[in-house]
């Protein structure tokens, strides 16, 4: 990477960090581009050199979180049972978001209204999350723990749906990480219940 590209990359990281802090503490609407620039100790112009608008900045903060989660999920060791491995991987997401629930809440709302370009970029990352879950399921089928008739793509998507839906409990009902994890464990159980190979 050239020196120039490196400097650009650093500016981008600084802006993402500042944006994350302000979106978390003030919420999406109240955090202005001007505030974010000053939090990063940069000019407003520098923000627009890296991001086209606040929505893109926010989308990139969310995607950076997904990338962190993906890396963490990839390092989860096989727990021996498919359900346990899936649970450990997805619980990492709850732990990550628990620290920044206001940001997560704003991100959830945003996810339903963002434009198609941002949505496509976000979905690319989500597809990688689904692919990791699918890998775990496939291994379960290979070692005979799960039936070969399991629809792996459909199941991994439904796992993601269940995982995401539980954030509502944290946001609106004050559920703790342990409660989310316990709920997810039961959901994984019902999703796999019909496909456990007979012992």
């Amino acid at each position, binding site marked *: 990477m050239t020196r120039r590209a490196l400097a650009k990359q650093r500016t981008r990281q600084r802006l993402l960090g500042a944006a994350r802090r302000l979106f978390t503490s003030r919420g999406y609407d109240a955090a202005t581009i001007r505030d974010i620039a000053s939090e990063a100790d940069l000019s407003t112009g520098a923000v627009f050199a890296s991001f086209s608008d606040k929505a893109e900045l926010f989308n990139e903060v969310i995607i950076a979180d997904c990338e962190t989660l993906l890396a963490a999920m990839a390092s989860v060791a096989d727990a021996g049972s498919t359900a346990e491995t899936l649970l450990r991987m997805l619980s990492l997401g709850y732990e990550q978001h628990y620290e920044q629930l206001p940001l997560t*809440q704003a991100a959830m709302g945003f996810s339903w209204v963002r434009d198609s370009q941002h949505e496509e970029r976000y979905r690319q990352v989500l597809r990688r999350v689904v692919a990791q879950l699918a890998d775990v399921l496939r291994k379960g089928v290979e070692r005979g723990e799960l039936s070969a008739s399991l629809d792996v793509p459909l199941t991994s998507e*439904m796992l993601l*749906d*269940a995982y995401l839906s539980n954030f*509502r409990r944290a946001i*609106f009902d004050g559920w703790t990480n342990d409660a989310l994890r316990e709920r997810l464990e*039961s959901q994984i159980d019902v999703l796999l219940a*019909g496909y456990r190979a007979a012992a």
Partner: protein
Amino acid sequence: MASRQVRKAETRERVLAAARDLFDEVGYEATTIRAVAQRAGVAVGSVFTTFVGKAELLSQVMQDRLEALYAELEQVAPHLRGPTVDRLRSIMAVHYGFETRRLRLFVAYIGASFHWESGNGVIPIGRNDRLKAVLLDILQRGIERGEVRPDADLTMFVDTILAAYIWNYRLAPQDGADASTMIAAMDRQMGLLFDGVAARPN
């Protein structure tokens, strides 16, 4: 009812109808209270004497719509025929058919409700106890008819199918998916999940 109360009820209905149409036509963000008042033919002030703000309006529009839908589902559910899994599918298909008639309104509601605090006259997404009760009742009858395992975790079944149900709407605005696409997705999801509660032949 005194004429004053009648007028008040009429204003409320007109405001809700105007809000519903505008949310669906131009979206939630772009809809202003002023535009709602104008469409309803009432003063801006009378919108505020009835509702705290836009969020409460959207919430109320949705509660009214869902109220009507749930009443219909509750009436129809006991008369459904065929295997349990197909009865469940039918209920969800009716639901998608109903919501996709005003898709933009529904998606706006899901997005906006994440910004709401519980209370304050607004109800966040996912508080659909009547829908859950209808699904649970069908599953319960499934147990009685020997199609569903009596020890199956039915609450978690309903919880998990509703998670898939909501996220299927994500297909809608971006991919231009219509009711039949979402119903087809739900049919597969329901089939997979039902395999986990189905009674197995001995």
